């Protein structure tokens, strides 16, 4: 499996190399509660440049909440988020996107009525400059700009091997491909940090292998820092440099995949604990 081979190459500079420098994203003591439900309590987490970090945990552990906090959909009641050296705890989702954080959703959030091409083009909206009148005339710089972005999108389409479905409305695609298109849209924004919420959920083995390959290729090719939530442990162990485990809104373990896999607290969280 090519996945394992690549993992060994990138595992080295991961946690050890990045530890000394300023992390790309620092989450400090985040707490989020919805009414009486404590979704996250005092969670801290660093993500370094060039890492692939997996966030694991049983259902309801607060993984998606953490991702939503990072991408600005929720605002934490306590704690701080520092991205690229700047505090950005209270930013709104579209402002987070402007900073260079792109994400995908657990239940694919594509623009279903639009073609795959248009979906991916929307990912570049932030890269486009608006010339109100020139845009309307589709003339001069506006036209050049559109063509430039189109070229960038075509590169991503080639990269993720979705040439054949370019003109298909996204809503008509099978689930696995929709996930891939969503990844393409996130990539189109050329993010510094890519957040993937269960990119392989509901996929068959073959689709999972493809997705693994794409995630690793993205990492190698563009040097994108990636944080992903995933349930499939073999996937997590294969592709991540570091694993963070959550349970009941708390961080219970953090470290290299092998260490987390054998961690007592993690095993207890997944299998349940005998109260003796």
């Amino acid at each position: 499996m090519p996945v394992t081979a690549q993992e060994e190459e990138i595992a080295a500079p991961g946690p050890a190399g990045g530890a000394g420098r300023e992390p790309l994203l620092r989450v400090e003591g985040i707490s989020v509660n919805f009414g009486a439900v404590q979704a996250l309590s005092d969670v801290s987490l660093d993500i370094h440049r060039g890492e692939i970090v997996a966030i694991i945990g049983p259902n309801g552990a607060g993984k998606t909440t953490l991702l939503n906090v990072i991408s600005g959909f929720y605002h934490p009641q306590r704690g701080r988020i520092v991205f690229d050296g700047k505090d950005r705890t209270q930013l709104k989702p579209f402002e987070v996107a402007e900073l260079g954080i792109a994400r995908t959703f657990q239940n694919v959030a594509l623009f279903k009525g639009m073609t795959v091409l248009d979906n991916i083009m929307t990912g570049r909206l932030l890269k486009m400059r608006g010339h109100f009148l020139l845009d309307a005339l589709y003339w001069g710089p506006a036209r050049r700009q559109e063509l430039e972005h189109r070229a960038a999108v075509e590169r991503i389409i080639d990269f993720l091997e979705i040439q054949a479905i370019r003109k298909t409305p996204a809503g008509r695609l099978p689930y696995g491909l929709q996930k891939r298109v969503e990844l393409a849209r996130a990539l189109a924004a050329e993010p510094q940090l890519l957040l993937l919420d269960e990119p392989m959920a509901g996929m068959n083995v073959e689709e999972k292998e493809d997705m693994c390959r794409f995630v690793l290729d993205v990492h190698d090719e563009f040097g994108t820092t990636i944080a992903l939530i995933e349930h499939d442990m073999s996937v997590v162990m294969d592709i991540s440099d570091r694993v963070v485990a959550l349970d009941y809104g708390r961080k219970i373990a953090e470290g290299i995949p092998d260490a987390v896999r054998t961690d007592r607290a993690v095993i207890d969280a997944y299998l349940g604990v005998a109260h003796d």
Partner: protein
Amino acid sequence: MPCAPTAPSSTPISGWPMIELLRGVLVAPFADMAGNLTFLTEVLFGGVAAGLMYSLVALGFVLIFKASGVFNFAQGVMVLFSALTLVGLMEKGVPVPIALALTLLTMVALAFVIERVVLRPLVNQEPIILFMATIGLNFFLEGFGEMAWGANVKKLDIGIPDTSFIVRGVQVNRLELTAALTAAVLVGILAVFFQRTKIGRALRAVADDHEAALSIGIPLKTIWVIVWSVAGLVALVAGIMWGAKSGVQFSLSLIALKSLPVLILGGFTSVPGAIAGGLIIGVGEKLGEVYWGPLVGGAIENWFAYVLALAFLLVRPQGLFGEKIIERV
């Protein structure tokens, strides 16, 4: 044999009215058209002019539907409200350009208020709830407009006389011509702008999925304000044109009903659809009225649009250019 000739001749006798009818429907009108081309041109011009005016109103619906997935029940009243504001200001002695600017400002301010008071609290709600909110908006604007400017019929004089001139024997109404040209220019600009630009794509994105749109960096609120402002501008232009034609009064808000079939025909999500739909209905109902009207005793103009829309709903519910509704199960 006395029986022999009667048998075959009975068939043509009972068949005659049928053939007569078919001739009346399929042949005579076209012969009439070909027979008097000048008159046909006049009818077609009237149809295109009316059609563009329908398109103008329909466009307001399309813009808002595209951006927020909401059918804006209040679009018709927005037309009335903008026209009322304009006339009201002009009656107070405000010069026309300033009155126009002030009315436009009012519509933009209205867009801000709607975003803050109606849309923002209802973000991510079911479309039906947003639809109900626009019904509320409809009643509010109707009452507010009448409270502010009075309920009596007002005359809107924009300085273009409601008279005709003749080009090569074809009568052309100045007011209709101006309205048609204005509508055509506005519709053209908006169509290109929303089809080809960054904002157009952002609009479609917002309409499709709020969350996903936010995640790729589209500020929802800004988009909504832009869209409702543009819808306000479109309403103002429609209000001026229709108001100049038939006076500014409550019934102005009912032209919205006439643009519903246009939307069904063209597709709720398509700017070119709104234009094509308007033209088809405008021209269709005028031709129907003039050439086929006598067959059924007239008044085709009143129901043509709705029957056509019904037929479309059966055959092609997404309209001519609308996005097909896709649901994977």
